[in-house]
């Protein structure tokens, strides 16, 4: 408490000297969002910023300064939302920027990308009076009981919907441009493939004949690699390309040739890829707005938040009405509703798949009917469901031991 007060008063002092005006600081609350790249990236950071901007709904915007803005709340408090972009992926850089932000008086700090996890968790220990959040990292491992939460969106639920739409339209061979072959993207690939197979089965096609061919670009975003990977898949004869990097370049490349089909991911791609069926996108605002409100109300608690359609944290945008008939869109919406209501879980058996054992052998994995993958099973998912081909994810050191949970009875 003492330390924070000192910092705060120092900031006040500096501000008053610098600007020449003394502002009463006791009725402001400062939230800082750290971003890896720029919100103009059409991808991950664009999605986060869409969510951050929804915080404006809490009150009236009284000042805007670049990406940052101040919101006047009904009770007279001024909520300062500071957004720092282009921090990059270097741990030391991230910590430096986060420290500056905290020294600048931030009460609540969000690290919005995987690489910010170590810096955020170190600082959470050092500054017990500041609240911290980390998105897209390791839940259950990083968070603590006092001032550090984690959050992430179950994007694979919407990956399943994207696959389901492609399946309903009869596309059975899909080339997929993936990022890293680690559990999070692998879950998405598997979710997409399962949705594709269910969609195909629904229109009477044989789901066993479907094929999702993955190319991993080993990068979260890289325009060049996204273009090259999409090109390689198109040259291989695929005409339907599933984008799974947040940036739209694989979809854009796909649409350069007439007759191809792209499926967007992360942030609406219809503006740059006119052959895209739709985009399943992140809706971070579903988390940011209530969390900031809770911090203001003093009801904030630590947790590991991991939600999807049920919390309205996912959306499907950019429907292409020429390529996707209305009844398919309606079916997708019905599926979304049943996932949101908890009636349907894409990761319930029967599911069979394969993965690599630590010895390098291909082993079979089975999720029997009536059983589902537990959260932990999903967080460590390093195997493919049947129907996915590509370079296998690295084998887990202890092999595959699924804990599985029973399907919720209806």
């Amino acid at each position, binding site marked *: 408490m003492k330390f924070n007060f000192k910092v705060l008063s120092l900031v006040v002092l500096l501000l008053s000297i610098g600007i020449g005006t003394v502002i009463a600081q006791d009725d402001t609350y400062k939230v800082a969002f750290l971003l890896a790249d720029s919100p103009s*990236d059409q991808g991950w950071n664009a999605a986060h910023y869409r969510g951050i901007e929804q915080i404006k709904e809490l009150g009236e915007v009284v000042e805007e300064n670049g990406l940052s803005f101040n919101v006047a709340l009904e009770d007279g408090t001024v909520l300062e939302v500071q957004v720092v972009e282009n921090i990059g992926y270097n741990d030391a850089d991230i910590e430096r920027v986060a420290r500056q932000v905290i020294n600048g008086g931030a009460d609540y700090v969000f690290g919005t990308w995987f690489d910010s996890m170590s810096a955020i968790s170190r600082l959470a220990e050092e500054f017990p009076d500041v609240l911290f959040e980390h998105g897209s990292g390791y839940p259950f491992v990083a968070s603590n009981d006092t001032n550090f939460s984690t959050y992430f969106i179950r994007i694979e639920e919407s990956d399943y919907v994207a696959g389901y739409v492609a399946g309903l339209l009869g596309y059975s061979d899909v080339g997929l441009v993936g990022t890293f072959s680690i559990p999070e993207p692998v879950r998405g690939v598997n979710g997409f493939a399962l949705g594709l197979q269910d969609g195909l089965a629904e229109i009477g096609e044989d789901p066993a004949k479907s094929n999702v061919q993955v*190319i991993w*670009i080993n990068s979260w975003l*890289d325009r060049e690699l996204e273009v*090259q990977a999409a090109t390689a898949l198109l040259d291989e004869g695929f005409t339907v390309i599933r984008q799974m990097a947040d940036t*739209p370049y694989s979809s854009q490349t796909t649409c350069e040739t007439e007759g191809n089909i792209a499926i967007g991911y992360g942030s609406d791609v219809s503006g740059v890829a006119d052959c895209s069926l739709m985009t399943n996108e992140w809706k971070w605002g579903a988390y940011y707005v209530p969390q900031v409100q809770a911090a203001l109300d003093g009801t904030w608690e630590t947790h590991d938040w991991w939600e999807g359609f049920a919390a309205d944290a996912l959306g499907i945008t950019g429907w292409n009405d020429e390529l996707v008939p209305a009844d398919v869109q309606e079916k997708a919406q019905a599926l979304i509703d049943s996932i949101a209501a908890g009636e349907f879980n894409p990761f319930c058996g029967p599911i069979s798949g394969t993965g690599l054992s630590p010895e390098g052998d291909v082993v079979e994995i089975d999720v029997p009917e009536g059983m589902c993958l537990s959260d932990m099973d999903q967080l460590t998912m390093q195997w493919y469901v049947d129907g996915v081909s590509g370079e296998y994810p690295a084998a887990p050191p202890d092999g595959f031991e699924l804990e599985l949970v029973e399907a919720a009875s209806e």
Partner: protein
Amino acid sequence: MELALIESVLSIAIRAGTSVLFATLGGIMTERSGVLNLGIEGMMLLSALAGFAGAFYSGSLLVGVFAGMIVGGLVAAVHAFWCVTLSANQVASGLALVIFSTGLADFIGQNIGPEGTTLVGLAGPKLQRFAVPGLSSLPIVGESFFHQDALTYLLYLLVPLIWYYLFKTRPGIHLRAIGENPRAADSLGVSVTRLRYVYTIVGGVLIGLGGAHLSLAYTPGWSVDITSGRGWIAIAMVIFSLWNPLRAVIGALLFGGVTAIQFRMQAAGTSIPTFFLSMAPYIATIVALLFISGRRSLYRHNGVPSALGTVYHRE
């Protein structure tokens, strides 16, 4: 490997290698005159921006390409002014240009979109690939070499032309002379200062074409850090080529082919460690350097210009 695979890998390698080859040729022209050019990355970044912005606002690809060339030439002129007129350290000048240009390109690009917004995500005109009648039906090379965009075809003409110019013409001898022994060239009445300016700018124009190819043809549109380090690759390729435009072609194809092969291998289900493949162009560069070191005879037509990086003072 089946033929279709070779064809497709070659096709991607050429597409990916085009901008690098332009930049490498530009680097060769500049460095043959004795001016070290470490600023290629910066020149490419600014010319890629100029190329896209020019085409976007004028609606004309030609304007875009020329804008890229002009900006490439202008940045190179700054480099020449520092290195030739002011006799500044050429390494420092090149590196300073990269740092400066990176920031400037981001700043401008994020602010000159419609109504002062960003250029990222805007779709402008783009160079389409088209098949050359007749040639494109040749086996293997047809679809890969002769189904490309106009700038790539321009490159097919430029490579032999530059080689011929460098090694078979009188002005080419002058160019090499000022890079090998400026004092001797000067004593024969060749203006070292003027020619170093000319070839640094010509190099910049070529590098500008590489930048424009990125934002108008290969990955149409503009984004931050659009080059993703190609300027640095080009510097390695200049060395790999031993300052010879023909060998630069091999370097560019190698560079362009590596990722293409890696992705095709993934799609085909075999896997070579990704990181090994990414190293391949650099390993090839080091091997090339090892190969020429100690072989003086190779230096004569291929090697490092003797006066590279040195300031020439007329006495």
